[in-house]
């Protein structure tokens, strides 16, 4: 025994090894008591409001507008007017400078946005601070650079804007999804009517203040808050030329149906049930980190979450043991605590859905593992969960749970892994873990998914196209390919 070890041996062991809390101050962000809709550069008084809350403790944060058909009509008319009134004919280099300003302002006010995002959405501050907000700024910066270079992206095609884009975004990455939608739309010369998700409107409303600071012409971006009825009004609006939707496959199909025969353009980024496939030669500890990141990142509220884990049989037991041990070190709790790994579930409705699907997993015969975990009394919480002994036919292996719930299945050969991985109506993403390069490329070529992460998971970048195969939607966001949906061409 070394001297150091002797010292440690004799040292008193703290009874409680939990982290001291390290809360981020919420005072950095001012939340108004009441918000209207941001239309034509001004706040439009809503006819009806609802309360938006903090999912960590159900604290009411603000009253926000429930957008009506009339509100959407005004927003679309403002967008149409701004489009005709100069935005669409503004030189790309000038549009670019507005976008650069927005990117810079998002960087300037990053902490404010991060706190608000975690407060209103429930995601850990670590993630909103290090992922959501910096990536949102990066998207504006990236697309700013395209605004005056569109002829080089699409040579001989004379690109021109589509018109007014109606954009409906989800609650899992509120600001980031706003950036994915708004940045390319503006870069291409379109104007926007944006609806943030019902449960997470606040970062979009704060973004309106960034637009004011950037001196973006009124009506170029309009923000109408509300639930699905507001979204439906955007889809139906005659002033809207293009719909971009991110959300559930069910709603995506309904939008596609409603747009049939209208000639409106459409892109859909929908659900997923991604396979994360671990071969027996993978670096196991790295794979475990990737699996955890794949499914517990953002409480599993991720359309590309690696929710189906396929493990090669020969490493099944050691891998599951490592995974369960790693799970017991995840810190579940206050989203504003800088130590938190897994935050609050976004809403009561989502929590109910997760509970229902997890109950079905137990009922159908899967083995459930949940680490010991003390959850706060108030708010919406769900313990990170692993299901083993899962059959392909179980609902937890088929349906998108959109929560911190992993289903573990096994395979013997690469062919079997592929067959099982592709056996889903979805096709958004997939993961492959192996040290064998040729196998990575073999798998990557055959996986029917828009994004394949090999020996990593949940990586995003503005220059990298993202989007699904099959019922995970169509169209791409990010990269040069993310411009196409916002342009018309002469040909």
């Amino acid at each position, binding site marked *: 025994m070394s001297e150091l070890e002797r010292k440690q041996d004799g040292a008193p062991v703290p009874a409680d090894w939990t982290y001291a809390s390290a809360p981020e101050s919420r005072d950095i962000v001012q939340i108004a008591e009441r918000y209207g809709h941001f239309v034509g550069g001004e706040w439009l008084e809503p006819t009806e409001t609802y309360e938006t809350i903090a999912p960590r403790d159900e604290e009411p944060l603000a009253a926000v507008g429930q957008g009506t058909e009339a509100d959407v009509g005004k927003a679309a008319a403002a967008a149409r007017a701004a489009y005709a009134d100069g935005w669409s004919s503004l030189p790309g280099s000038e549009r670019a400078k507005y976008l650069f300003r927005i990117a810079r302002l998002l960087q300037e006010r990053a902490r404010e946005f991060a706190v608000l995002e975690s407060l209103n959405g429930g995601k850990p501050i670590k993630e909103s601070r290090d992922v959501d907000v910096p990536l949102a700024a990066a998207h504006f910066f990236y697309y700013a650079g395209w605004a005056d270079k569109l002829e080089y992206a699409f040579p001989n095609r004379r690109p021109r804007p589509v018109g007014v884009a109606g954009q409906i975004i989800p609650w899992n990455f509120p600001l980031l999804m706003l950036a994915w939608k708004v940045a390319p739309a503006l870069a291409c010369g379109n104007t926007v009517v944006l609806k943030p998700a019902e449960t997470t409107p606040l970062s979009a409303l704060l973004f309106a203040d960034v637009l004011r600071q950037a001196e973006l012409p009124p009506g170029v971006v309009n923000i109408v808050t509300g639930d699905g009825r507001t979204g439906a009004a955007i889809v139906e609006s005659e002033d809207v030329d293009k719909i971009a939707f991110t959300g559930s496959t069910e709603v995506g199909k309904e939008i*596609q149906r409603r747009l*049939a*025969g209208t000639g409106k353009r459409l892109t859909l980024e929908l659900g997923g049930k991604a396979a994360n496939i671990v071969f027996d030669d993978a670096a196991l500890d790295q794979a475990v980190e990737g699996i955890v990141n794949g499914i517990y990142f953002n409480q599993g509220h991720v359309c590309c979450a690696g929710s189906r884990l396929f493990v090669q049989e020969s490493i099944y037991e050691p891998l599951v043991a490592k995974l369960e041990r790693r799970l017991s070190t995840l810190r579940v709790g206050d989203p504003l605590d800088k130590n938190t790994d897994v935050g609050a579930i976004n809403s009561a409705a989502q929590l109910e859905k997760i509970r229902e699907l997890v109950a079905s997993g137990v009922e159908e015969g899967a083995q459930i593992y949940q680490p010991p975990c003390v959850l706060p009394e108030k708010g919406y919480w769900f313990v990170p969960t692993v299901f083993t002994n899962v059959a392909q036919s179980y609902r937890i292996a088929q349906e998108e749970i959109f929560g911190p719930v992993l289903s573990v299945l096994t395979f013997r050969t690469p062919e079997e892994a592929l067959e099982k991985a592709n056996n889903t109506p979805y096709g958004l993403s997939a993961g492959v873990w192996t040290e064998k390069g040729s196998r990575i490329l073999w798998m990557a070529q055959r996986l029917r998914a828009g994004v394949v992460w*090999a*020996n990593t998971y949940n*990586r995003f970048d503005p*220059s990298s196209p993202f989007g699904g195969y099959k019922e995970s939607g169509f169209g791409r966001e990010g990269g040069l390919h993310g411009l196409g949906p916002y342009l018309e061409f002469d*040909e």
Partner: protein
Amino acid sequence: MSRLPVKKTYKLFIGGAFPRSESGRTYDAEGQNVARASRKDVRDAVRVARDAHSGWAAATAYNRGQVLYRVAEMVEARAAEFAELSSGRDEVERSIDRIVWYAGWADKLPQVLGGSNPVAGPYFNFTVPEPTGVVAVLAPDEPPLLGLVTRLLPPLVGGNAVVAVASETRPLAAIELAEALATSDVPGGVVNLLTGQHAELAPVLAAHMDVNAIDLCGADGDGPELERIAADNVKRVVHGRADVQSPWEIASFLELKTVWHPMGQ
């Protein structure tokens, strides 16, 4: 004594073979008895297209290009017949040249439509186009040969398998084209051509859960309804034009896949 010519029976083209409709029905078009495909014929065609798709998608781009070039050779060899079944020699020549033009795209698409992406961090990341899968094509009535060639080649060169419904009123050029395909090197099932009534066949294709994309070029008033039912499995809906030639036509039937890998020692 003049010789009695051998008359052709106009049949369907499914899985590389020429079956009659399983329903036993025919209809009259251009003065001939033409097979009138049933809903079951559509489902059979989609099934063989799905089976054929993986091999065609996995073929090397160079190989796909050569196979399609061979189709042009076969059409050229039957130019006189095609001229009689279309608007004439000019339409046939344009069709042949269009096939050759698309054949040459097979091994160039990934460089035009994809590439590597300059992502932050120690990752290598690239995007490649891939076929969407099984594509349904409703061929336009006019021009009878060039219209079908225009809609058929883009999904085909991208590696998709196709189930096409020929023009209801002008199907003979399509059947002739099926014969040219059968004598070229296109694997059986990669192209399937059905004749019959659009109103009966198109909704089956639009609703089919194993069809990934549908080209409504030849849809008439039922376009919006077909588009609506195509949403059941989030089909890619294409409103193709009867006479257009562009690599972006191919892109309509492609998916983009992005692959990430860390870089390290």
